[in-house]
């Protein structure tokens, strides 16, 4: 059934269709609608889940981890400061190998207070062991949320589904809501082999001395390494049932592109319009959408990007003291390849400043015009 809904509600529908069993969340703009609709689902019985309305995001994440270890499907959603408050427990979720799924509505970090979008909140959690998937449309939000559970449960790793504040979260557009029966077929009941249960009176996550800790960390990394294949197979299976696929990255009109623009989140969507326009103008430009941020799809990135002469990366974030995070990741992926194209890092749209087609056009145009980047990062739209 197609329906006009917001990105936030797409998240809620995704969690509902996935038959989430325990939800725990704390309100924060711009995430609130996610939990409001889920509360309604729970109240009406449309979703048979326990919703723990906690007193902080830290507790929300803890509740999900704890419930998850009893072998149930858990979900939460947050933004910015909420995510930052969760930080400790994000490590815990991954360390405890819990398949918690969380939506993070990308919002800039204070101070000054900002409710508007940028990616610094989620990218700050890069090293916690979470899988991160960035979305560009409400349909993708819903589809990714459903897939996230399957990916998480196959790998025993937590998954973060990420969407832009307002640009997706509060924007309504048509979304194809899949049939419950088909979702059920795609996502069977969750079974956790070793769970908190009386039949296994074990201690979970106790003191682990240097003799043992190292190996456990190694296993988390191994799971991340398996993730690329797992995400691909989950995606294929999803495509078979629902007719939509996303991949870990998407190359759009890249085949003969001299310049490839790398984007994530909703900028991708707007960039598609720009790419089409420039292609019509005969400019050889392509677009690479990086949906999967962690684990890094290094091979896939290399395969697409290596063919280009130049790469322009749009970062709606800044890793202070260095550069945009996506640009770092792209550079690191290409490192060691002889003749790797130069990477232009454009910082744009921080704190929700609108990113227009004109701005994207200008970025691509600038990349065409410049042989090598003159500066490590190129700020766009900043008033100095």
């Amino acid at each position, binding site marked *: 059934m*197609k329906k*006009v809904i917001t990105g936030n509600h797409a998240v809620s529908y995704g969690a509902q269709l996935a038959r989430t069993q325990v939800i725990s969340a704390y309100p924060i*703009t711009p995430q609130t609608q996610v939990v409001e609709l889920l509360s309604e689902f729970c109240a009406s019985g449309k979703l048979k889940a326990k919703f723990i309305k906690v007193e902080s995001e830290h507790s929300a994440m803890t509740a999900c981890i704890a419930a998850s270890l009893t072998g149930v499907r858990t979900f939460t959603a947050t933004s910015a400061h909420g995510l930052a408050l969760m930080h400790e427990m994000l490590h815990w979720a991954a360390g405890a190998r819990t398949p918690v799924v969380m939506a993070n509505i990308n919002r800039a970090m204070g101070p000054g207070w900002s*409710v*508007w979008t940028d990616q610094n909140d989620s990218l700050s959690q890069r090293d916690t062991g979470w899988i991160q998937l960035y979305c*560009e449309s409400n349909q993708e939000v819903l589809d990714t949320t459903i897939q996230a559970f399957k990916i998480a449960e196959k790998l025993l790793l937590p998954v973060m589904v990420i969407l*832009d*504040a*307002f*640009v*997706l979260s*509060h*924007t*309504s*557009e*048509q979304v194809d809501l899949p049939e419950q029966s088909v979702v059920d077929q795609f996502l069977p009941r969750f079974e956790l082999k070793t769970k908190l249960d009386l039949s296994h009176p074990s201690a979970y996550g106790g003191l682990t001395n240097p003799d043992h800790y190292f190996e456990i960390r190694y296993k988390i990394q191994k799971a991340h390494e398996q993730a690329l294949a797992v995400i691909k197979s989950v995606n294929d299976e999803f495509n078979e049932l629902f007719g939509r696929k996303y991949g870990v990255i998407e190359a759009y009109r890249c085949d003969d592109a001299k310049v490839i623009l790398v984007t994530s989140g*909703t*900028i991708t*969507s*707007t960039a*598609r*319009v720009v790419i089409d326009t420039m292609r019509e103008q005969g400019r050889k430009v392509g677009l690479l959408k990086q949906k999967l941020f962690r684990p890094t799809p290094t091979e896939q990135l290399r395969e697409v990007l290596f063919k280009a002469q130049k790469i322009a990366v749009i970062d709606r974030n800044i890793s202070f003291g260095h550069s945009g995070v996506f640009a770092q990741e792209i550079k690191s992926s290409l490192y060691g390849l002889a003749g790797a194209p130069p990477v232009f890092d454009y910082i744009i749209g921080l704190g*929700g400043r*609108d*990113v*227009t*087609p004109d701005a994207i056009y200008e970025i691509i145009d600038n990349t065409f015009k410049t042989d090598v980047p003159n500066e490590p990062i190129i700020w766009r739209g900043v008033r100095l």
Partner: protein
Amino acid sequence: MTEIRFHGRGGQGAVIASEILASALFAEGKFVQTFPEFGVERRGAPVQAFLRFDTKPILLRCKVYTPDHIIVLDPVLTKTVNITQGLKPGGWILLNSTQVPNSNQFSKFRLAIIDATGIAIKYRLGAKTAPIVNTAILGAFTKISGLAHLDHIIDGIKEYVPVKLQENIQATKDAYEMVRQI
């Protein structure tokens, strides 16, 4: 692609109006996208909502800078907000007003007025000092623009306005009849 901008005040229902209109257009097979002005909404403060529709998927994710039509839910806003900014020549301006504005700033555009406030008060929609005019204004816009069928607007109201449903539908219908093209 057509773009519409709604001007209103927090609490008047501008955002809901854009969503109802989007759902009506969606029912007619259009691709739609609607969103409020991003930020923190407060009752009484000026707000905007945006709507895009097209026959093909909408990819643009930036704000609407050059709308095709303008819908103004509160006539006083014309004094404080440059409501015609970016409006394409020949576009509709629908004003919630009892009087034809004595101004030539609308000369390049098509203008229509509707006493949506009067209708809202009649049907006791919203509080006396803060009537909710969104359903009335949609009836008027449907009539003048011909972009959506009244039935689909009413379907949208059924989905998005759960309280005082009959009154809201009646307000829409009244406005549909009463709207005056200047």
